[in-house]
């Protein structure tokens, strides 16, 4: 099925969302309780906030549209500080409270640790945006609704080399699992797309001052820059590159994908292109519904993290609906059978490992907002590992 | 052969020669009084001998062994003990614990043995004897930091004696004590010396030093000025000049500068 049967009611539900309280009026005892953990405090609190807002929005929309298979959705949210030793008790507490399905709105270390708990308990579990390759290898109950870093890195290489035709590339890599996996994917395919990597710089997630890297890039005078990072590193990085007189195109990824990036980098953000899964100009009603409703709820434009958890909640509900209840094994099987399910981040199908297969969106910053630039449809290049 | 023999010892702090070319020999069984005006380098010499400060030049031999490069603990194990001019008890321990630790030196010399053993009996007994000897038994259970200075001075001496030294270096043990206290402690030092312990006594209290020392050594400006029997040395003009010079320059025992 190309369009989920939820779609029409959901669009309708959108307009009701703000009027209907979370959890809805239906009997609470009968609610579908979804376990959810995210870094609400600590260094990753920004992403934790976006990710819980995204998930809450999905729940509100589903409830406004009559619930999930007739049941109201209730999120049970716990903080994990993005740390494994907080995530395991949080996951166990969720189990203790009787949740039958669970979603991670957190980073890799915490997600992988929680995945072990849920896999052992036989509970279906979706990682919304953690990118560590081993998360889905935890077991057959673990799924991921976002791109693996390597897949996105390969898409980046194709975009820069083949679609833009740039050859001499400087890489600026964020020193964490996200940056490292992007870099691995990019380098894997760079030669195939005629890219020569002139030099590679790296920085830590705590860095905001990039003067030495800017000096290096000026010396290298590349055709384009492939730089990984999150909005809070990419914002200062891009503005410092531009202020330092570097004019080469800058290509980023999902981590840039929030209005906060543009707010920080301002004029310097103009023309920056990113690989992501959220298309702001999409005609797709799912995406439009999410983008508009999120801004109305949160007071700031949607970002990738919010879209990812929104997607994960929607995917989970779809599986529960198809399974006809929240029996964990049935939901797991229904999840695995998800096919072309339309979400805010594209059409979702899983491979044997529980990784998604979908197209990559390219967005460009234009007049202070992300706009559609291109999309990459290349199932072979974008295939995630299946074991 | 002398028990302790230092040759041509020198050390410089920030361009100032604190000790320069000192030759000193301590004979077995003597009680050597080391005197001199403030800033003469007496404390520095003691610290050089015990290993708290490394010499820039010169050699130190103890009982025939070259200990110039030996660390402080190794010198202590060979039988070189000291007390500090400013008392340094282990503040969180009781008086008895302070002295017991020193008395357990045979155990504490081997960390593995120290890890395995918990028995305090022998060390406690030995410490008890020493406290009695030093007449501070009544303070045994009190925290070291809370004791009066006179007791702390004795504590330091007890700790030093507890390691069963062959040479005891005392750095102003009488300073800060009243006359009676000073006299009694001096008597004790003399007794220990008569029992066979070699002592080097750095002291400003000339009266007591002259009373108990068997020999006198005078330091001025980092060098040895004179050595010999007490009355002889004190008659020498240069020694008197050095002391008179001091008493004219400073008002009494100025506590600002330290030997």
């Amino acid at each position, binding site marked *: 099925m190309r369009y989920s049967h939820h779609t029409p009611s959901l669009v309708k539900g959108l307009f009701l969302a703000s009027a209907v309280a979370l959890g809805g009026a239906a009997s609470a005892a009968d609610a579908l309780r979804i376990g959810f953990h995210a870094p609400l*405090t600590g260094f990753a609190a920004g992403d934790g906030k976006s990710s819980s807002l995204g998930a809450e929005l999905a729940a509100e929309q589903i409830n406004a549209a009559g619930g999930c298979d007739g049941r109201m959705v209730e999120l049970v949210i716990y903080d994990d500080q993005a740390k494994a030793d907080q995530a395991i008790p949080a996951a166990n507490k969720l189990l203790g409270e009787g949740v039958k399905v669970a979603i991670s709105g957190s980073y890799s270390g915490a997600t992988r640790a929680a995945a072990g708990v849920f896999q052992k308990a036989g509970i279906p579990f979706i990682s919304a945006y953690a990118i560590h390759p081993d998360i889905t290898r935890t077991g057959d109950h673990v799924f991921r609704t976002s791109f693996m870093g390597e897949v996105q890195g390969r898409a980046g290489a194709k975009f820069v080399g083949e679609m833009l035709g740039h050859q001499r590339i400087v890489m600026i890599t964020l020193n964490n699992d996200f940056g490292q996996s992007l870099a691995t994917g990019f380098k894997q395919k760079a030669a195939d797309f005629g890219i020569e990597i002139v030099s590679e710089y790296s920085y830590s997630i705590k860095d905001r001052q990039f003067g030495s890297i800017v000096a290096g890039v000026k010396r290298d005078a590349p055709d384009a820059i492939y730089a990984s990072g999150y909005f809070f590193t990419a914002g200062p990085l891009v503005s410092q590159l531009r202020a330092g007189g570097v004019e080469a195109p800058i290509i980023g990824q999902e981590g840039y994908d929030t209005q906060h990036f543009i707010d920080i980098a301002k004029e310097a953000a103009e023309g920056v292109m990113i690989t992501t899964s959220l298309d702001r100009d999409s005609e797709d009603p799912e995406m439009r519904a999410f983008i508009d409703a999120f801004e109305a709820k949160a007071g700031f434009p949607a970002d990738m993290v919010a879209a990812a958890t929104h997607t994960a909640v929607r995917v989970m509900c779809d599986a529960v609906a198809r399974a006809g209840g929240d029996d964990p094994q049935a939901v797991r099987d229904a999840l695995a059978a998800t096919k072309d399910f339309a979400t805010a981040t594209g059409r979702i199908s899983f491979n044997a490992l529980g990784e998604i297969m979908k197209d990559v969106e390219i967005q460009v910053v234009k007049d202070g907002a992300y706009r559609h630039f291109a999309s990459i449809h290349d199932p072979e290049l974008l295939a995630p590992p299946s074991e | 052969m002398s028990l302790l023999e230092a040759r041509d010892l020198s050390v410089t702090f920030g361009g100032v020669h604190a000790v320069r070319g000192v030759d000193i020999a301590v004979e077995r069984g003597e009680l050597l009084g080391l005197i001199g005006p403030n800033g003469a380098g007496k404390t520095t010499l003691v610290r050089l001998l015990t290993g708290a400060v490394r010499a820039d030049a010169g050699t130190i031999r103890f009982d025939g062994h070259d200990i110039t490069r030996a660390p402080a603990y190794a010198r202590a*194990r060979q039988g070189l003990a000291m007390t500090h001019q400013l008392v340094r008890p282990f503040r969180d321990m009781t008086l008895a614990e302070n002295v017991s630790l020193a008395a357990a030196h045979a155990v504490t010399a081997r960390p593995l043995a*120290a890890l395995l053993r918990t028995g305090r009996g022998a060390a406690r007994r030995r410490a008890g004897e020493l406290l009695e000897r030093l007449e501070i038994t009544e303070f045994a259970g009190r925290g070291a930091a809370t004791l009066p200075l006179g007791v702390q001075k004795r504590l330091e001496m007890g700790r030093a004696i507890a390691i069963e030294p062959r040479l005891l270096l005392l750095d102003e043990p009488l300073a800060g004590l009243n006359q009676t206290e000073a006299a009694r402690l001096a008597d004790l030092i003399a007794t220990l010396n008569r029992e066979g312990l070699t002592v080097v006594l750095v002291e400003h209290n000339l009266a007591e030093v002259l009373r108990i020392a068997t020999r006198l050594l005078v330091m001025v400006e980092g060098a040895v000025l004179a050595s010999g029997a007490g009355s002889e040395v004190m008659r020498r003009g240069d020694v008197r000049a050095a002391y008179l010079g001091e008493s004219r320059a400073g008002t009494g025992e100025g506590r600002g500068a330290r030997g």
Partner: protein
Amino acid sequence: MEAYILSLVVFGALNVMLALGLNMISGFCGQISLGHAAFYGTGAYAAALLSISGLPFAASLALGALVAGALGLVVGFATLRVREDFLAITTMGVGFLFLGFVRKQEWLGGEFGVAQIPSPLSPLGFAVLAVGGALAMVALSLHLRRSWMGEVFRAVAADEDAASTLGVDTARYKLWAFVLGTACAGFAGGIYAHVTGLIVPDAFDFIQSVTILAMVVVGGIGSTWGVLAGAVLLTLMPELFRFVNDYKLLIYGALLLAVMRWSPSGLAGLAALVRRALRSSPA
């Protein structure tokens, strides 16, 4: 609920081991360390890699502790001349150096850390092992305090130079403190790796080091029972305050501040006050 309690028991026991280990170095021997997480991480990485390479779980744990202790020996040796606040900052530097090194090592998995660590025990099994380990360390800690080594540690903590004039080789004792304390951390790290199944460098960062030191100090530096209580309290605190998800860290910071401001000897000091009050009140 049971699994939740078991997982809290595991992490509580791990924190007890970490805190008691640090207490041997900082509490008993007076060498303040701000880099304890590095040894936790060393044990975790070593045990994880050995376990993956096929070594039995028990052997991996033991070797993890050994490797951490060996690193403790090296670090202790290198920092022998560095004292007090200088030492605190140097050990903090060791923590950053460890992280910076691990991040860039492909054979340690780089930023991805080590995954697919076998899970040889059930949650109950891990809880029993961790509690057993923690109890063993409580016993070690109590013995250490009573032993002559503990007595020397007190002297070294109070006045290193004075201790050496009593024939104590203070350097060797400091090394013993480092080795014992870091081996405890390494053992805890080995269990941590097998409980979580995945270790990433960030789990062993400066914040973790500070958290361990906070447990020691809140409990009462130098007191085995106090430190035990401090570790348990600070493990449970985020759980107790789960209902105020958003304010957890604020409360945590304020608690550290409040304890230092009004009860600087920690829980142990508080307990001593209560005991004294009970004793002096007419029965």
